[in-house]
């Protein structure tokens, strides 16, 4: 999603007036600059901006905390059985939705099954690919009744897995797998402000083009959150987020690194400057089904003919570092081995010649299509200067681009991916596994798939890491994608605001926010 981009160009003066930089425990509201959700439906949303909203209003069985631990949420506990091929979630007792209606295991089953709906599968449906029968159902080759997600009474959910999947409790934390009322598809009011029914800490009480208003849910399993009302602004009319923060009209806002540079030395704002960790990777990919990128020599030429690390370094964001593989730093399964692209012009020219395009001669006209990424111009220039390739370039708005990726991927494209859960497979199997919904380039490798299965079935971390490393080495050799950089961002948080810390999915849990009494 386009969180940062959306956030940095907007602003509208809203929110309760208050004294800037003064903590006030009596305050029961908060104004945040964020993004509006493309959809409030967990099964429809697929981007980080939407997930930030959805995660507040719909709860999952587990949650990821700010230290990247898996924590109990709607599920009080869970256990693995059958050598890891079955996971049993034990729901908390007396759970209800925000309208007081009981929330039971059958709601979990229906919520997860609709993610797989073959008529309109979630873009993140592949999160459940390890569940027995899940993939066949979403591909229209199996029945819903054959999906290995079963309710046992009202308080237990049994998940049968194709093979041992050590990360399933972590996967269950994804906002995509949050629990929704079973009538969500027949009752439009469920997702509408005023009649909203959710399972999270907040409900949507207002929704305009510029603001999503969240009200505390008194039925939340952990009790009503400390802050009663949150004004989530998605548009501030082009004003500076820093200026709006200083004026007291924003309590918590992402800011650009260009502002962070001076704020670090500012005695007033500096102490309120935060680094926002983001388990994310930016990468470029190819349409593997068509020439010329169905030729591995061409892909290798692009990987080695561009000095990716230098162009990342020259972009000047100190929080972004060149990628050493698809799995970001800090995510379990990140490797100490460097699988990132390595600039080697001799190799690049040799590969290009092997593909039949010596010095770029005869290279077909292909187009790099993105939503407008910072490295695009540098890539176009380096392909021209280093390889003699003049590549076309175009920018698309996000909805058009996303639809194009899913239906007819551009020859060369760009993507940013932040963890649905902080595990390596979210960046490997989910993005590059054969037939997965987010394998935009349509790459298929039996060796890669096998390595991923080996990692998920591993019974110790050494074996798991070894298998993930093998998968990454295959990616580095076959180049279906080129990992470019890992990122993070900056924010300003008002004095006295507690808990403004992103979790292992890059999301801030609003139920964990409060105003200090000091």
């Amino acid at each position: 999603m386009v969180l940062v981009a959306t956030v940095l160009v907007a602003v509208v003066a809203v929110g309760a007036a208050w004294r800037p930089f003064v903590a006030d425990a009596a305050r029961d509201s908060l104004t945040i600059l964020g993004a509006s959700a493309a959809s409030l439906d967990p099964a429809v949303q697929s981007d980080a901006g939407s997930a930030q909203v959805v995660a507040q209003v719909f709860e999952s069985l587990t949650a990821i905390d700010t230290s990247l631990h898996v924590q109990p949420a709607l599920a009080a506990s869970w256990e693995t059985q059958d050598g890891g091929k079955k996971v049993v979630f034990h729901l908390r007792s007396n759970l209800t939705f925000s309208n007081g209606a009981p929330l039971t295991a059958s709601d979990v089953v229906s919520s997860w099954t609709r993610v797989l709906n073959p008529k309109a599968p979630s873009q993140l449906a592949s999160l459940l690919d390890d569940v027995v029968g899940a993939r066949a159902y979403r591909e229209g080759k199996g029945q819903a009744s054959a999906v290995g997600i079963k309710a046992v009474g009202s308080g237990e959910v049994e998940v049968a897995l194709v093979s041992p999947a050590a990360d399933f409790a972590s996967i269950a934390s994804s906002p995509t797998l949050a629990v929704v009322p079973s009538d969500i598809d027949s009752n439009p009011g469920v997702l509408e402000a005023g009649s909203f029914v959710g399972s999270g800490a907040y409900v949507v009480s207002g929704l305009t083009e510029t603001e999503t208003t969240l009200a505390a849910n008194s039925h939340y399993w952990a009790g009503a959150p400390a802050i009663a009302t949150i004004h989530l602004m998605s548009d501030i009319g082009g004003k500076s987020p820093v200026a709006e923060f200083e004026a007291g009209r924003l309590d918590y806002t992402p800011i650009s690194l260009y502002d962070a540079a001076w704020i670090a030395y500012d005695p007033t704002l500096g102490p309120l400057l935060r680094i926002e960790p983001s388990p994310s990777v930016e990468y470029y990919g190819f349409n593997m089904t068509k020439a010329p990128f169905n030729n591995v020599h061409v892909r290798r030429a692009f990987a080695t003919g561009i000095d990716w690390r230098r162009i990342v370094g020259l972009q000047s964001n100190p929080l972004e570092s060149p990628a050493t593989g698809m799995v970001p730093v800090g995510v379990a399964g990140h490797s100490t081995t460097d699988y990132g692209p390595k600039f080697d012009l001799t190799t690049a020219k040799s590969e290009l010649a092997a593909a039949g395009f010596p010095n770029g001669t005869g290279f077909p006209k292909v187009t790099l299509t993105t939503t407008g990424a910072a490295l695009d111009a540098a890539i176009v220039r380096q392909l021209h200067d280093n390889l003699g390739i003049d590549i076309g370039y175009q920018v698309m708005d996000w909805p058009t681009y996303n639809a194009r990726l899913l239906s007819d991927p551009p020859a060369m494209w760009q993507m940013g991916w932040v963890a649905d859960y902080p595990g390596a497979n979210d960046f490997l199997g989910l993005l590059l596994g054969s037939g997965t919904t987010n394998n935009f380039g349509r790459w298929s490798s039996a060796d890669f798939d096998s390595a991923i299965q080996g990692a998920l079935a591993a019974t110790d971390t050494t074996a798991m890491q070894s298998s993930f490393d093998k998968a990454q080495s295959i990616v580095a050799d076959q180049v279906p994608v080129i990992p470019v950089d890992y990122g993070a961002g900056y924010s300003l948080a008002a004095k006295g605001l507690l808990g403004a810390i992103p979790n292992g999915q890059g999301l801030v849990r609003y139920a964990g926010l409060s105003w200090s009494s000091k």
Partner: protein
Amino acid sequence: MITSRRAVAHRGCAVFVSGLLGLLALAAPVSAASVSFGTPTATSAFAKGVAFTQPVSGASFTEADIVLTMPGDIGPSVVKIKNPGSPLKYTFDTSTGQIQPNTKVSARFQVVFADGTTQQGPEIKVTYVDDRFHWQTKIGTFVTLHWYEGDAAFAQQALTMGENGISKSARFLGVTETAPIDFFVYADQQSFYDALGPGTRENVGGEANTVTRTLFALIAPTDLGYARTVVPHELTHVVFDDGTTNPYHSPPRWLNEGLAVYLSEGFGSSDKSLVSQAAKSKTLMPLQALTGQFPTTADRFYLAYAESVSAVDYLIRKYGQAPFQKLVKSYRTGTSDDEAFTVAFGVDTAAVNKGWLADNGVTSSQTFGPQTAPAGPVPPGWTTSGGSHGGQSGQGSGEAGLLIAAVLALGGVVLLGVAAATHTRDRDAQPRL
């Protein structure tokens, strides 16, 4: 899930109206099916939007897009048309200052057929203008002046200032100017701010949009004294950008602004006083703090400008003027700040900062952030080791805080090296005269 944190900060473009409607050759159909495109139109209203229409008839199509190209773009932007009919319609919203006046835009509609093939219509070229005024125009060698208040003598003086400013900056920086620069003079502050857009900070008296090669300045006909500063200042940005533009890296803002102030008014007594006072009170910001945006508060904002010209003055006193031409040429090739400064001055940016601070009697700078966010309330049952479970543990467990710790450590160190903003829309303060 999908994220897109690296959106490009380009696009200083603007909307248009001036009917430069160029109809270029039709793109050849590539599908068995085809449509007939009529004559497209484009109408624009300042601060509202630009409406494009395209009559179309013939075969049915499944999708329609508009393909827009703005100045500075390396390729077009494709926007899907909602509910396409005939004529095809699209309005580019400019109500929140997405683009500025004098942006030249080319557009053409395209249709997509069921087999995935496309057909493009004729190109429309239009320029978005600020249609609130009756603009008069005076053309010089480098600069074309646009003004709506004041007499011909005023315009001639403003134009001469522009011409002289360009010549002086180009000579100093070793840049050869060939393309024209448009210079729009506004006589009142609100109209000027409206033209620049809602993000305009207070104290801004001029702005150079280096992408559209347009200078906007607030100059009342009775206040040409101010113009003598703001005009060469802003034009220096255009020249500097022409000399350094590359797809890889933008020079630090303190250098850009410092040169603009130096070449328009020198290192004046007021700036010297601001720097001196900040040095004494230990509130001098290091040059690393001034690589991107300048501070929002007025006192720190003015100090940022003063420090910038102070640093340029320091470099000139220590190394002379000649290395600046090397510096500009080095940036043009896509070098980092350290590489460019080493080529020009024989030292990296850290050494320049250290030398400049020492020149002002300062040995170090204090950072106040970033700081770790204080923890908030945690639900009952959440433990430091993760959730309650039997059997194998999830991947998240056992990795406590590694990501956050790694990023915080990285940020704490490298914030000092944060670099420049893209100077497509440089904003400058009112002169401190």
